[in-house]
């Protein structure tokens, strides 16, 4: 029943968005803001021929970069959060580098990695890495001492404490950070694809814009939004499976 209510919610929200868009297009009355009819029409006709290949390229870039950052940042953040000695060394580095807008390194990455997928993946991974790292560290620090004590009293080794307590306790926070990061990741993806390269939905949007093909541009924007929604939903589903306990007893 949950998924049905969700689907109905999504449909209702989509209908409200389209209605608002239609109204706005009427008021603005500019070719740069075509109505939903035109854009959705282009989206439908171009989806399999033109949009899907670009969507595949973009989706790969986002998923790969998020996978890389979570694989590196989550274990590091948990280790740092549980070890005061490591934390003393790493935390100042995090505090120093976290506020630096990593997006300014795009030119450097373009020089080093070319204009293909690699610099885009590297840039997104770099930005998401810090968001996950900070979250994982904080989550590991907040684990109740009693949970650790009770497991240690059973004779658990350090790695068993991680496996039975630290990792499961931090997972919901890490999932939340990942879900929030999808928005950031897709924004960075659009930026990097529109600056350099000849592939991806971001490139498609900017290319349509330069050709003054506004309804195609909007078909690209819809595709980008779709990518965000699908990623967010997939993460939500994964969390519901992996962290079923957070929904227990509510």
């Amino acid at each position, binding site marked *: 029943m949950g998924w049905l209510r969700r689907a109905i919610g999504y449909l209702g929200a989509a209908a409200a968005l389209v209605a608002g868009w239609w109204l706005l297009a009427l008021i603005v009355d500019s070719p740069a803001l075509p109505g939903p009819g035109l854009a959705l029409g282009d989206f439908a006709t171009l989806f399999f021929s033109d949009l899907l290949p670009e969507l595949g390229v973009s989706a790969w870039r986002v998923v790969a970069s998020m996978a890389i950052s979570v694989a590196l940042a989550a274990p590091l953040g948990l280790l740092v959060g549980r070890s005061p000695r490591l934390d003393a060394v790493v935390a100042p580095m995090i505090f120093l580098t976290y506020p630096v807008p990593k997006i300014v390194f795009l030119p450097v990455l373009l020089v080093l990695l070319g204009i293909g997928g690699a610099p885009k993946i590297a840039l997104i991974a770099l930005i998401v890495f810090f968001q996950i790292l900070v979250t994982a560290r904080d989550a590991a620090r907040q684990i109740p001492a*009693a*949970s650790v*004590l*009770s*497991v*240690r*009293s*059973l*004779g*658990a080794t350090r790695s*068993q404490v991680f496996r*039975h*307590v630290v990792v*499961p*306790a931090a*997972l919901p926070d890490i999932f939340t950070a990942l879900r929030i990061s999808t928005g950031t990741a897709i924004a960075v993806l659009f930026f990097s694809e529109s600056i350099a390269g000849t592939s991806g939905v971001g490139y498609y949007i900017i290319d349509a814009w330069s050709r003054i093909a506004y309804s195609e541009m909007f078909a690209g924007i819809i595709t980008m939004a779709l990518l965000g929604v699908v990623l967010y939903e997939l993460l939500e589903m994964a969390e519901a499976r992996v*962290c*079923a*306990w957070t929904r*227990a*007893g*509510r």
Partner: protein
Amino acid sequence: MARVEVRDISVVYEGADRSVRALDSCALDVADGEPIAIIGPSGCGKSTLLLAAAGLVRPSAGEVLVGGRAVDAPRLKTALILQDFGLLPWKTVFHNAALGLEIRGVAGAERARLVAEALERLGLAEFASAYPAELSGGMRQRLALARALALDADTLLMDEPLSALDALTREDLQGLLLDIWRQRRHTAMLVTHSIEEAVFLGRRVVVLSPRPGRVAAVVDNPEMGAEGYRETSAFYERCAELRALLAAEGALHGAAAGGEA
């Protein structure tokens, strides 16, 4: 087997700017299979004493022997039950009960059998796949007991295990703790704030002094475990005796302030 010998231990917690002496030359001998209760003013180091016996806190002086061997790390046959039950919210009832066995590397089939037995005994069999958040307080406490039983622990260290429960559930579980002890005859050290609970569950009741904690008095309670003991006048007299001792230790403020905390 599981005699617990606390030999003049002192425990000092090193804080950021000062150190706190929680226990000072505390000595105590618990015979194999003897259930004792430990009671004392708040912050007298009762919990520290249990943690030291569990091998989780290292004394700065003295030593603790369990089963004749010095405890410097958690011991396989000792089970520790904490005030908040020490359950992991992300594990189901089954996996919480199985945790000790899993950590000790007991094979899957054997583990499932032992856990099923323990859950059955504590009336939790039908909740095996529930999460702790779905259980009542009394059920959570029984689950913590199930974990200890699944381990076949010969020593149960309990730190105010029932203090978070309502009065009725609490009395119910006191009866359960007594039943289990009667059947298994394990060594038990129960830290409690409740005078009645101490007299009901401790064959000896140890009174600790205010911090730094040391043994101020030991009250023998040989009738413990007798049928209907709670209703006898001997029970009330023992409680009154303890209350007087605790008042002398400064645990009670004002002569009228008796009863359970």
